[in-house]
């Protein structure tokens, strides 16, 4: 049992400390780094999906007034480490996917850089490209592990026999689309190479991880690389690891020493250079008794990675622990294609992996004539099915019950396609949410006293989530002082090392580290420290990690309205109830939940990166064509939470909340659309053309 803080600042809905700077436009983002005389660069991308470039003609581009340099695979500096092929840009002539960067123009203005980029002439030796993901490919392979280090396959009991003998079985295939993260702020970097030191103002979810990556790629000692990132305009995982653009900016800076260089991807470039979520094909088989208890679960997932770098989304992982069943088999198979490199996108694994299974549970509920809330309750495991450990806290059933009450689920008529309100067919649906509560080792925090105030330093990142605001709340309670007396310094490698803002681990990892530093500070200096008193501490290990299964849970209830004439789908209401430990700041937390839920509606109804197999690139690569939910698509969103305090995850009693909001949402919407129309859509997104044939 972790010793929990007495919550005084924790739990208060404090306003964002970075709010005034952001709304007044004075918060400097990476592209607005305070530098003088910047140059600008613009990448030139391959327009074939596989092959090599035989010539990169730069004469015309270089002759343009204001062009400083044009880097090509033939002229760019050789990187020290090219093991990560995604980052090894301008190192060879090979083209592993359409959009690979083949030249980089550095110029006095962004306009000139862009104009010159159009003048770069590239000749190709073209190979046949292979970009189509299908479950029947004969070259699917089994990765050694799935992101980040889960077993690829699992097998318990005798699934085949259990499926044969089950009173009721279900065998369905579900698909999720290819998705792109699309934060408002594109991937941007300002880079300066001066006196043997590389300074990067980079839009990132982790300054130290970027420093580590770039130092390795360029063969520099880490202390010769500084990364600064006080503010981020969203990342959703796409800024969790360094992608090619930051390497490009650094290459450009080293080509014009002493002069800062800025790079901002265009929206279109983000569709091939900043990661994305793989499409998934999920074959789900369930066996159950008439009482609704699962006797078998089998989930086989097929997804893609790039030919040059493996990323295996852990889509089947949540099905390993969500419900009780004695017989369970899960697995992942990949196709390595001539496509850009997939990566993290909000709740990798859980997000797609709670679509198929949660729709399947709804289908099973109909098969059995059992209410879908009740069906889930009946399959609640007593212990973690995967490890046999107890849960540190698991209140899924309470979320389902409280959410049902709040939403008005009682007395729901289960019949599909029978409710009409004017032109609308109306239905409701439910799905469960889950996200692991993890802690990452390896952060350090410093607590210092001076001029009557405490300062906590840690190189954490606030990608819009609220770290600037919640970390002082945690530090204040750990120090036992008012939150107004605590400043934090984050977002810079000048501060002590911190782990990435990813996997909903930020607040737990940095918070536990801050608490350790604060407590050490108190132990050493007591309540009356002197100016300059300072203590540093590292992330403590959590011995409970091996003894408990730690997850946040939730239940999402959706009301779908489908226009009976046109098939247009609207999510009239979406209510989420979460059990995610103690909520450190209700204001920023609600925003996280609602943001995730909005992204889930977006996934359910809109988002779909359309990869044209003839060309090999996503052809709806802008925000006019890649639809993301707009305000009118989420008229009534509500997020609530249970009063849960988890004694095992961290000293705050909290769990990560950045990702769980997107988990299960699309399934809740799909289930509601079925209830409204009687049409079961198993392939996202749910668009009107899929509903029209089944409408009255």
């Amino acid at each position: 049992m972790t010793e929990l803080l007495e919550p005084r600042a924790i739990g208060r809905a404090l306003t964002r400390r970075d709010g005034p700077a952001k709304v007044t436009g004075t918060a400097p983002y990476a592209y607005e780094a305070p530098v003088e005389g910047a140059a600008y660069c613009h990448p030139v991308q391959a327009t074939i999906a596989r092959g090599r470039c035989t010539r990169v003609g730069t004469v015309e581009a270089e002759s343009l007034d204001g062009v400083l340099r044009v880097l090509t695979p033939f002229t760019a500096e050789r990187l020290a480490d090219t093991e990560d092929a995604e980052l090894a840009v301008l190192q060879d002539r090979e083209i592993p996917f359409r959009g690979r960067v083949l030249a980089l123009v550095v110029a006095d203005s962004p306009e000139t850089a862009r104009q010159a980029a159009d003048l770069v002439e590239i000749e190709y030796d073209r190979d046949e490209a292979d970009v189509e993901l299908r479950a029947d490919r004969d070259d699917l392979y089994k990765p050694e592990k799935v992101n980040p280090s889960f077993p690829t396959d699992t097998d318990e009991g005798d699934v085949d026999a259990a499926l044969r003998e089950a009173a009721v079985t279900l065998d369905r295939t579900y698909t999720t689309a290819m998705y792109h993260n699309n934060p408002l702020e594109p991937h941007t970097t300002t880079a300066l190479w001066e006196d043997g030191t590389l300074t990067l103002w980079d839009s990132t979810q982790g300054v130290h991880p970027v420093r580590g990556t770039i130092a390795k790629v360029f063969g520099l000692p880490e202390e010769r690389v500084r990364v600064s990132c006080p503010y981020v305009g969203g990342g959703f995982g796409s800024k969790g690891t360094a992608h090619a653009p930051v390497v490009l900016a650094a290459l450009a800076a080293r080509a014009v020493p002493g002069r800062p260089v800025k790079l901002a991807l265009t929206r279109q470039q983000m569709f091939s250079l900043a990661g994305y979520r793989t499409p998934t094909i999920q074959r789900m088989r369930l066996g159950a008794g008439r009482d609704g208890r699962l006797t078998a679960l089998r989930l086989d997932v097929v997804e893609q990675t790039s030919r040059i770098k493996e990323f295996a989304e852990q889509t089947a992982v949540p099905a390993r622990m969500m419900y009780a069943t004695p017989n369970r088999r899960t697995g992942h198979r990949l196709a390595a294609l001539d496509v850009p490199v997939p990566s993290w996108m909000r709740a990798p694994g859980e997000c797609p992996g709670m679509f198929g299974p949660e729709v399947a549970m709804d289908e099973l509920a109909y098969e059995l004539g059992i209410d879908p809330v009740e069906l889930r309750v009946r399959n609640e495991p007593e212990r973690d099915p995967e490890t046999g450990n107890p849960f540190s806290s698991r209140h899924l059933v309470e979320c389902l019950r409280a959410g049902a009450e709040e939403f008005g689920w009682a007395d729901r008529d289960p019949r599909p396609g029978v409710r009409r309100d004017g032109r609308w067919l109306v239905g409701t649906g439910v799905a469960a949410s889950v996200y692991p509560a993890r802690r990452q080792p390896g952060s350090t925090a410093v607590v210092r006293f001076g001029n009557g105030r405490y300062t906590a330093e840690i190189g954490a990142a606030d990608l819009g989530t609220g770290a600037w605001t919640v970390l002082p709340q945690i530090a204040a309670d750990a120090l036992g002082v008012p939150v107004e007396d605590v400043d934090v310094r984050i977002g810079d490698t000048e501060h002590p090392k911190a782990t990435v803002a990813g996997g909903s681990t930020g607040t737990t990892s940095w918070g536990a580290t801050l608490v350790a530093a604060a407590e050490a500070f108190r132990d050493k200096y007591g309540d009356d420290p002197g100016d300059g008193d300072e203590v540093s501490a590292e992330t403590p290990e959590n011995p409970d990690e091996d003894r408990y299964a730690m997850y946040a849970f939730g239940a999402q209830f959706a009301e779908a309205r489908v226009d009976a004439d046109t098939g247009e789908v609207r999510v009239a209401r979406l209510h989420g109830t979460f059990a995610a430990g103690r909520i450190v700041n209700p204001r920023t937390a609600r925003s996280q939940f609602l943001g995730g839920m909005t992204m889930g509606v977006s996934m359910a109804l809109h988002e779909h990166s359309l990869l044209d197999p003839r060309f090999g690139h996503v052809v709806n690569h802008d925000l006019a064509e890649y639809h993301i939910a707009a305000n009118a698509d989420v008229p009534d969103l509500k997020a609530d939470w249970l009063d849960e305090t988890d004694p095992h995850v961290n000293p705050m009693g909290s769990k990560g909340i950045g990702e769980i909001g997107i988990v299960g949402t699309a399934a809740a919407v799909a289930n509601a659309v079925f209830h409204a129309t009687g049409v079961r859509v198993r392939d996202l997104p749910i668009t009107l053309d899929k509903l029209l044939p089944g409408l009255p």
Partner: protein
Amino acid sequence: MKPFAYGRPATAAEAVDAVAGDPAAAFLGGGTNLVDHLKLGVAAPRRIVDVTALTSTEIREDADGGLEIGAGVRNSDLAADRRVRERYPVLAQALLSGASAQLRNMATTGGNPLQRTRCLYFQDVTTPCNKRKPGEGCSALGGATRQHAIIGASEHCVATHPSDLAVALSALDARVHVLGPGGDREVPFTDLHRLPGDRPDRDTVLEHGDLITAFTVPALPWARRSAYRKVRDRASYAFALVSVAAAVSIVDDKIDDVRIALGGVAHKPWRAHRAEDVLRGERAEEALFRAAAEAELADARPLDGIDGGNAFKLPLVTRTLTAVLRDLTAEEPGR
């Protein structure tokens, strides 16, 4: 993006001369389409002639109750005009269903119908497109065709015209006032836009240097019973998959007259004359509405596509037109 010269002549006539005399010049209105195309490399004029201050920003009434709308009137102002809202609900609704509030504040009435047809491949200079480069080939054929044409397309181009305003103006038999190098002339709105044929590079019948100065919307008292219905993939800020502009006059329980135009189905706003002919003089009932839609779609040719194609637009047109006519002919229209 290429450097260009920017100018603001003092008069419309000077602007016309400036553009007519320079094949690489272009007019700039609200910029909501041209500026996008500059950034995408779809358009690369060397000279931009800003006409936003050169045409009328007034909406004037003519003697019999029709409206003359200056080309410089912003979309948001036109949609908010009381006369437009009362006399031509179809027009106000079409405007408000387009783009976003910010874009409507910028977009001009003259410029909106002149936005280029939309197609993923037209907007992507790395893929072949006959509209950008005649003879290069059409990438949409065999590609993503969800938003593409089902009527009046050619083997050279299957793009659709995206303007909502244009669909309403087509239904209302508006007239276009054009100032060209040879002087003033009028063009029926329904003749303004072209089908692609073998010249998909030409969206309209206007010649280089022709400037739209105003539109006339004739008096049509029964257009008070009119509506615009836009069906799209998200609740706002999306182009039409299918849209219907319709006005109906009911006399003695029969459809005395009717105007219908469709959006999202063709290279131009599609005036549905065949459907109108089926409806005129008949009793308003659901089976008739469907028959009218089906008559209009008799020559429709849906496209296959990597995104599932656009065959869904046929039932969608029928269902949407039926719904609009059902609402308009109900006893209390507009509910």
